[in-house]
């Protein structure tokens, strides 16, 4: 079984599904000859040709709108936006059309499409290249928002996203693209959407995260294990629709919860999880639910991005508070 990075797993998922289904196309800026700015579409042009590997004009609204038009005709469009900061021109198209055509036409026209975009910071990229957009999209009814946290999940979840009959925003954490490898076999088997993954089982505290922050969250769990604290790590994976059942079950077991998110704190998806815990899990909690999130600032340029992005120390600090209030 080959060891793949996340970006290679993303590439494999697209190639694999394009081999299986002749009505899958990929489109975006510089995705053909150039193979995409992160090389996610490397080799696809040679294998599938320019009709199915569509280099578009430099127009993000068009990329989203074209994916909508293609998908209404039953072509499964997998669009790439180069960086999440350039997703904003797509928002109008996604919220007013992609998420609504099924409803507006009573199911006559549907949008089985994916918009993939690199997401989050940590790779010293230029301005507008490091934002975390998941909450922006997760608030839109009719959409799926997915963010993988490993090569195997990237492969399985992207396959699921492409096969899904509804629009999916697929946010790939840039700093995990080449951070580590996993054995990924091209089985063509998708992972389930709309469900959290228990990344690691534990009994003393539930750490909830998704995407890029899963890496630091796993490191925290390692550190806690050294101290004899058993952390259960939940990877939300599909942010919208949100599988609260898995999180509530975990918290019912551990009684403690810290949620880790890179996107800004106020009104973020960590807040949505915390609010649900307050409504439905309060009586199983030994201590307040804590959030570790990006600050409510503009995403800083490269030199200061580590100030903004939560890290092991910041997560540990919130974990300590929980155990101070409710010792093991």
């Amino acid at each position, binding site marked *: 079984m080959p060891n793949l990075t996340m970006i290679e797993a993303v590439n494999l998922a697209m190639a694999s599904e394009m081999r299986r289904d002749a009505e899958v*196309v990929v489109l975006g800026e510089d995705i053909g000859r150039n193979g995409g700015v992160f090389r996610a579409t490397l080799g696809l042009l040679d294998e599938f040709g320019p*009709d*199915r590997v*569509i280099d*578009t*004009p430099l*127009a993000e*609204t*068009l990329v989203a*709108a*074209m*994916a*909508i*038009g*293609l*998908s*209404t*005709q*039953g*072509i499964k*469009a997998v669009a790439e936006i180069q960086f999440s900061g350039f997703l904003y021109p797509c928002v*109008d*198209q996604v919220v*007013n*059309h992609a998420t609504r*055509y*099924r*409803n*507006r*036409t*009573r*199911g*006559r*026209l*549907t949008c089985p499409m994916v918009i993939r975009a690199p997401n989050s910071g940590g790779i010293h990229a230029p301005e507008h290249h490091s934002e975390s957009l998941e909450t922006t999209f997760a608030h839109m*009814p*009719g959409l799926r928002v997915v963010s993988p946290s490993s090569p195997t999940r990237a492969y399985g979840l992207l396959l699921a996203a492409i096969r899904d*009959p*509804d629009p999916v925003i697929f946010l790939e954490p840039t700093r995990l693209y080449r951070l580590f490898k996993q054995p990924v076999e091209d089985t063509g088997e998708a992972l389930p959407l*709309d469900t959290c993954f228990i990344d690691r089982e534990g009994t003393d505290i539930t750490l909830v995260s998704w995407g890029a922050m899963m890496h630091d969250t796993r490191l925290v769990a390692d550190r806690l294990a050294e101290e004899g604290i058993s952390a259960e790590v939940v990877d939300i994976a599909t942010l919208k*629709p*949100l*599988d*609260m*059942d898995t999180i509530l079950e975990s918290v019912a077991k551990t009684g403690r919860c810290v949620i880790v998110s890179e996107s800004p704190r106020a009104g973020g998806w960590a807040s949505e999880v915390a609010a649900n815990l307050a409504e439905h899990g309060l009586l199983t909690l030994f201590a307040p639910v804590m959030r570790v999130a990006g600050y409510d600032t503009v995403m800083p340029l490269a030199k200061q991005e580590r100030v903004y992005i939560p890290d092991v120390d910041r997560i540990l600090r919130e974990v300590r508070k929980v155990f101070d209030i409710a010792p093991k």
Partner: protein
Amino acid sequence: MVEPLTIPDTSPGSATTKVASYDIYLTRFLNPDGTLAAEPPAFATDREQARALYELMVRTRLFDKKAVALQRTGQLGTYAAVLGQEAIGVAIGHALKAEDVFIPAYREYAAQFARGVPMVRILQYWGGDERGMDYPAGTPSHHDFPLSVPIATHIPHAIGVAYAMKLRGEKRVVLASCGDGATSKGDWYEAVSAAKVWNLPIVFLVNNNGWAISMPSHRQTGAQTFAQKGLAGGISGEQVDGNDVIATRFVLERAIERARNGEGPSLVEALTYRLHDHTTADDARRYRPEQEVTDAWDRCPVKRYKAYLEARGFWTAADEDALIADGTAIAESTAQEFLKTAPQAPEAIFEHLYERLPKSLEWQRDEVAARGPVGGH
């Protein structure tokens, strides 16, 4: 198509040289008084075909009048009237083939009727019921797009639809329409710019009705015409008298057949006039001189075409009486059908949100279902 960048040589002995030029043409067969400006095409000299255009125009006007009356009496929500622009919808409806795809803005009711949308659906939509966009299976409208309220954002969908047709080797065409104001938006430009890159089978139609709510056309652009806005994307643009149903059908058919034959996209600017307010929620007297509207009635598409049919001997006073009586009765029975539309179940708001409602949303649907009908309408 732009070639790989080369900087052209200038004319010998001259510092500057002409590298591109263009012309914009206007087509008209019928003068405003119904006399012929030029010999009309065959479909307009065939009695049945010629009469069909008129009948749809009048039936649409009678429907429109009824819809406004329903709104004025509190029985319909905000409605966008098509008064004065009926010829364009009629022309679209007759120019497209069944297998083509129509992506409308929100005033081309005549085209939708021609393609199989029951009149009652339009009332249901403006009456606040999603089922008004459920166009019937077995009609061309079933694969058409619904009305699009956001301005211009539907136009780039034509790129994806036409690309899909091309990818599958189908000889089908997309017609995407909007108003003059929509051409100010980036979405519109991105579509027009991309269409020629892939030489897609698209006709972009701009209904230039003189006004984008309160702003006159000349405040949308400093360009002499809207037709020339296609030139920047490498698309041929032309104007047509949009109140001349013969010319509009003729020009659209020509552009559609070019697209079908692989000759790529076109832009048609149809010159018309919005005789009504923007919508029933608007009062055009706030910004538009009454005299302008009075003058525009002289260019009315219905009056003009009726004069033509009469001169041809295709239409009599008895025909007119019968059509008005029938069209009025249909508008009335459509209104009654609309008013009797059974309400949707409250939990229907969860239908068609996703193909299958996600498990995490089931409790919300169940809560709505258990609560039952709520007040208001």
